[in-house]
């Protein structure tokens, strides 16, 4: 009906401003004339009243003026509550805006002038041209009365103008005090009226989030913090840390410690973590904190300040040290009834393939058996029993007892180490079973035993440090394979621990001129893992020197890539801290310089979603290189590493990788499947699955191999039937190509990893936290996959075991106050993003009710389906302690 575009039908501040530009008083008069005839009686009355007020305002009599202004205010206030159309008074006053403005200018300073300013400020809401900020201007000269009385729309508009004014004044470096007063008012208003998101937006614009602390209360802090944490993902530079800082403080203020801890872990701020412990007095809740820390996979030492009682502290430390992980995992396995060990043949399911599958060969193929070793290890990981390695060895008649010897040379290393994988997290039995290999006189077997000890201890800490005690003395042995076994074992067992004792024994190897290249490479890698994300100067120095000492020929070796990778891991997720080292890397030999550069960049910004870095890396991929340069591989992986942190960036990255795939050169195409594998790890998205399936038949065998491994990665631990079917068909398609078949087997093992109970995703706690050690493990494997032929298909296949760093049960296990598992009903469904949503929306959709323990797939969330218990953490993942609800009544 109204010919004037309705400025109020848009809610966003920016858009509204645009709308108001179109309205300026060019032709409204003409239109108003026309409209007059359409007006209803009431409206006509209102219009005439208002016109009268406008006239009276200009009356010299202050009494009359005041009465007119008050009436006008009354009319406006009465109408601005509605949001659906332009309030009528505003509409009718529009032609008089100019007159009133003019009059206001000439008025003497008085209360009346202020009153008029107030009214003008409101009128400017629809009248003022863009960039003039008249509304704000009049507001500042006005009476400073209650801001909310003019309605939401007015406040919102004002907030927008404040942000603009603020940036301008920042530029001019003029005072902002008057603005801040207004901000105070607005924030208070917003926070009271369920508009936390807008309050946060305004405060972010004026860079004063601290104000928030005064205004949050019990009713709105959760929504506020929710918005803050999710906004942090999209903020640049130091701002995101600031925002999270505020969120942390709010959570602490309202004693929402689990969330506070989550943010503390995200910020990697141990001081904050400690503060959580010291602020909380409830021992049971502290236990829950310990579970959260243990899932994150960092090394954390409790001190008496955090937990006063010695016995309690020891118990809590046990939880942090993950000593109960194996028990919980087995509880889950028993509940789901998957304890029965599976053989590789159960996974291959060759009987489902008609005809084409060649019958089992009469003689043992080393390649085939090695694949079976890995499949067996991955599938039975952590279950403590299998059908190849743990069967009693005295059964000399059966071939099973001697499975170890069905592997050839370095294959025996992987076979012996697979025992560690099968007994994963169960240090006591693991060490006991691995012991027999230590007394072997076959070097590859000893190497495997050492590696196995490392794997068993992965993520588990123990006061006696059995891994260090056992492996320490083997580092200096003569045989390179034994040394690598020990070094890699230490790297896996102590990833993220920043253990000085190990550093002092590993660093000398890096600069030992006599040490073989592969030993040096693995030492650098292990140091990178142990000091992951620590920015440790000394380790960095050692690796840099080691890189500088390498000869031209050595730099060309495939295994050398672990040196820059080790360096990169030191700065994993640490952003700018890498810059000094990145400068130094520019002086390296040109053969490795760019590779190093890309690795450092991608590691440092891993999981940050930094768009600028994504662009940098994309630019690198756009170049067409001469043959021999290998740095584009890590650049492509870097794209995935940087973008993997949040869903939107992830989807964008998947699309842009599709382009890269089409236009990139062969060395880029080889890395793209791996990047896709990283982006969707343990999260089999159908579109990615299809792309990888297509690439798995690529004419370039390296692209095909990478795609096959990636199929395994995206399906890792999901038992996804579609991927399993694809891989089965690939196994018959490639039955004649031993290399590709090996890759297919490994992928099959990955898909059925832990019989579907495990996940490789480094993200946890509702995808907020990124476990640095898990990411380090995956990235290492992917870098190794960049040169599949020389590393995984060569004699370093045991790098596949680095995946153990990322392996975690994808479970939710509820325990009672004595940490004994209890079964309660829970609803499990697809998680819904509820950030900034009005009211109390459902957080999951399409849910099903199960009883715990349950498995959680990627993107799923659980909630308790009973009021009988209260979970001690709002994030229902991993171990959750339940407390009885005192208010619960049996129905």
């Amino acid at each position, binding site marked *: 009906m109204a010919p004037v575009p309705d400025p109020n039908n848009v809610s966003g501040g920016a858009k509204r401003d645009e709308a108001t530009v179109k309205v300026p008083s060019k032709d409204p008069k003409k239109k108003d004339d026309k409209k007059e005839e359409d007006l209803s009686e009431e409206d006509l009355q209102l219009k005439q009243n208002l016109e009268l007020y406008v006239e009276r305002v200009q009356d010299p009599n202050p009494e009359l003026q005041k009465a007119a202004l008050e009436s006008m205010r009354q009319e406006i206030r009465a109408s601005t509550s509605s949001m659906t159309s332009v309030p009528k008074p505003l509409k009718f006053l529009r032609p008089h805006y100019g007159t009133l403005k003019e009059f206001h200018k000439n008025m003497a300073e008085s209360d009346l002038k202020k009153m008029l300013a107030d009214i003008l400020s409101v009128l400017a809401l629809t009248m003022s041209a863009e960039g003039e900020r008249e509304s704000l201007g009049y507001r500042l000269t006005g009476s400073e009365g209650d801001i909310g009385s003019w309605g939401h729309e007015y406040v919102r508009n004002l907030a927008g103008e404040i942000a603009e004014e603020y940036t301008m004044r920042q530029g001019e470096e003029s005072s902002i005090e008057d603005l801040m007063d207004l901000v105070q008012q607005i924030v208070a208003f917003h926070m009271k009226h369920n508009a936390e998101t807008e309050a946060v937006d305004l405060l972010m614009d004026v860079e004063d989030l601290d104000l928030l602390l005064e205004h949050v209360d019990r009713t709105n802090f959760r929504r506020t913090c929710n918005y803050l944490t999710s906004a942090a993902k999209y903020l640049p530079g130091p701002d995101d840390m600031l925002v999270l800082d505020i969120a942390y403080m709010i959570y602490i203020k309202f004693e929402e410690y689990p969330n506070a801890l989550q943010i503390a872990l995200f910020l990697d701020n141990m001081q904050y973590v400690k503060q959580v412990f010291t602020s909380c007095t409830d021992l049971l809740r502290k236990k829950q904190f310990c579970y959260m820390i243990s899932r994150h996979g960092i090394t954390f030492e409790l001190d008496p300040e955090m937990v006063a009682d010695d016995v309690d502290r020891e118990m809590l430390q046990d939880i942090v040290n993950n000593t109960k992980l194996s028990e919980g995992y087995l509880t889950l396995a028993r509940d789901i009834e998957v304890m029965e060990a599976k053989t590789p043949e159960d996974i291959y399911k060759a009987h489902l393939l008609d005809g084409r599958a060649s019958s089992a*060969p009469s003689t043992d193929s*080393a390649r*085939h058996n090695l694949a079976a070793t890995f499949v067996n290890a991955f599938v039975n990981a952590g279950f403590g029993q299998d059908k190849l390695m743990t069967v009693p060895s005295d059964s000399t008649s059966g071939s099973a007892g001697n499975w170890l010897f069905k592997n050839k040379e370095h294959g025996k290393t992987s076979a012996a180490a697979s025992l560690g994988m099968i007994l994963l997290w169960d240090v006591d039995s693991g*060490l006991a079973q691995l*012991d027999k290999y230590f007394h072997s006189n076959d070097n590859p077997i000893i190497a495997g035993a050492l590696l196995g000890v490392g794997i068993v201890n992965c993520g588990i800490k123990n006061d*006696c440090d059995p891994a260090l005690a056992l492996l320490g*003395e083997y580092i200096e042995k003569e045989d390179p394979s034994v040394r690598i076994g020990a070094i890699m074992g230490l790297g896996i067992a102590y990833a993220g621990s920043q253990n000085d004792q190990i550093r002092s024994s590993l660093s000398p190897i890096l600069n030992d001129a006599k040490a073989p290249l592969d030993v040096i490479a693995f030492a650098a890698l292990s140091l990178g893992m142990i000091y992951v994300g620590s920015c440790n100067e000394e380790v960095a120095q050692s690796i840099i020197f080691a890189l500088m000492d390498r000869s031209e020929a050595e730099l060309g070796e495939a295994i050398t890539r672990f040196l820059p990778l080790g360096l990169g891991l030191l700065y994993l997720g640490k952003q700018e801290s890498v810059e000094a080292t990145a400068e130094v890397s520019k002086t390296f030999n040109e053969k490795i310089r760019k590779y190093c550069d890309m690795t450092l960049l991608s590691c440092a910004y891993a999981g940050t979603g930094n768009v600028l870095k994504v662009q940098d890396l994309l630019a690198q991929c756009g170049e067409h290189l001469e043959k021999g340069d290998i740095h584009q591989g890590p650049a492509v992986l870097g794209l995935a590493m940087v973008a993997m942190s949040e869903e939107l960036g992830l989807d964008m990255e998947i699309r842009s990788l599709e382009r890269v795939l089409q236009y990139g050169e062969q060395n880029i195409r080889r890395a793209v499947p791996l990047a896709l594998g990283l982006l969707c790890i343990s999260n089999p998205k159908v579109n990615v699955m299809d792309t990888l399936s297509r690439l798995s038949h690529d004419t370039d065998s390296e692209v095909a191999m990478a795609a096959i491994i990636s199929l395994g990665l995206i399906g890792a631990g999901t038992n996804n039937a579609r991927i399993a079917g694809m891989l089965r068909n690939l196994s018959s398609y490639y039955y004649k190509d031993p290399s590709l078949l090996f890759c297919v087997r490994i992928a099959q093992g990955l898909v059925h990893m832990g019989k579907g109970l495990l996940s490789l995703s480094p993200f946890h706690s509702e995808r907020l936290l990124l476990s640095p050690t898990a990411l380090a493990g995956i990235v290492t494997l992917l870098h190794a996959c960049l040169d599949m032929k020389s590393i995984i298909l060569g004699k370093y296949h045991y790098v596949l075991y680095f995946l153990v760093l990322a392996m975690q049960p994808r479970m939710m296990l509820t325990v009672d106050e004595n940490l004994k598992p209890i079964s309660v009903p829970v609803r499990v469904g697809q998680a819904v993003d509820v950030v900034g949503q009005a009211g109390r929306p459902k957080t999951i959709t399409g849910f099903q009710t199960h009883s715990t323990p349950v498995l959680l797939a990627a993107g799923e969330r659980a909630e308790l389906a009973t009021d009988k218990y209260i979970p001690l953490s709002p994030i229902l993942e991993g171990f959750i302690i339940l407390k009885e609800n005192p208010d619960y009544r049996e129905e």
Partner: protein
Amino acid sequence: MLTVSVKWQKKVFEGIEIDVTLPPYVFKAQLYDLTGVPPERQKIMVKGGLLKDDADWSAIGVKDGQKLMMMGTADEIVKAPEKAIVFAEDLPEEEQATNLGYSAGLVNLGNTCYMNSTVQCLKSVPELKAALSNYSLAGRSNDVDQTSHMLTVATRELFSDLDKSVNAVSPSQFWMVLRKKYPQFSQLQNGMHMQQDAEECWTQLLYTLSQSLKAPTSSEDSDAVKALFGVNLRSRLHCQESGEESSETESVYSLKCHISHEVNHLHEGLKHGLKGELEKTSPALGRSALYLKESLIDSLPRYLTVQFVRFFWKRETNQKAKILRKVDYPLELDIYDLCSEDLRKKLEAPRQKLRDEEGKKLGLQTSAKSSAKDSDVKMTDAEASSHGSGESSTVTPQEGASSEKETHMTGIYDLVSVLTHKGRSADSGHYVAWVKQESGKWIQYDDDHPSLQREEDITKLSGGGDWHMAYIIMYKARFVSM
């Protein structure tokens, strides 16, 4: 005196006393009593290191009440198996070949796929291979000319090369000899050797082999090739004009499947092929007259070869044109009704036996199924017996002549190899051999590229499109022992 607790596997030994004045070896001996792990196998972990036998307790800094961890078992130490395991990767090439379950392909020497596929099909006859391996210079009879001899030797060599090799074999020697013997295969076109008719190659090769493999005694019966492939036909000639009738016998190496509009199935084609008209001087009429010839099979070969007469000389285009019509062929062929009366009588008993056996197999299985719930043992028995009878019904060829007395032809044949042609004329296109292995798997030999195929895909080669279509197929007789 210190008191510590020691954790070993899942057990914790509390309150073990250490006499710090004695070396740790004594402590280990204490643990030996508790755990049964000999001291030299014990690994005791004290904060970041292992406890050495001769270490000084004070230097280690063990505190009272500390928890120590011990690793070690009295388990047997793993030993490598006495007999080293042999890996396929280490085997010499020829042994790797046996692992694949099928032999190598043949390199195409330039339009030689007709020859390659013929060789692959013939190679699948173990009896022929055996006969060839017995062939030696000494066995050469005088009436075999030099080139035939050379071709026979070349065939023998080629077969054995194929069995040994993993990688494709180049049949250059064989090809040279073949061209020498049959110069028509040397035809050139644009400087290249021309594609040839595989059937011609097949016939010529078999002919040569039959000549040279005749035993020195040179009696009819000892002709190995004839014994394997020869079909004796008894024909009845009937002249409608004069009403004369005569009969004659002949021996052929393959049956023809004539393809006309009425023929949809191999059986119809074969019947068609056994009937014919020919012009012949009639003694009664004293001039040539039209005779009707009807043939019936008088004796059955071990291997029945059927040629689909797909090519005919098209005068208009001056080339061998191809009939694309789809003619189905079964995996199991019964030619009982193509046999002569005498032969049918001979076949009666073995066929009855075969039917009985099959009936028994089915019957037993059904009864086993019904009683499966009652006793599992019975079912396994039944399965075993039916399995056994199944085996006895097909006699393995290796048994050869000695067992022939007990085994009898049944007139039923199983498909063992198919030679297909793809393309529109005999002198162009591509020939491929599809051969059933002893393991029961089908292998497609596309020159140097053998690949596994499914059985149902084999029957899809029956023509009617531009896909590979059967040109020559070979069946193997099913025997029954009596």
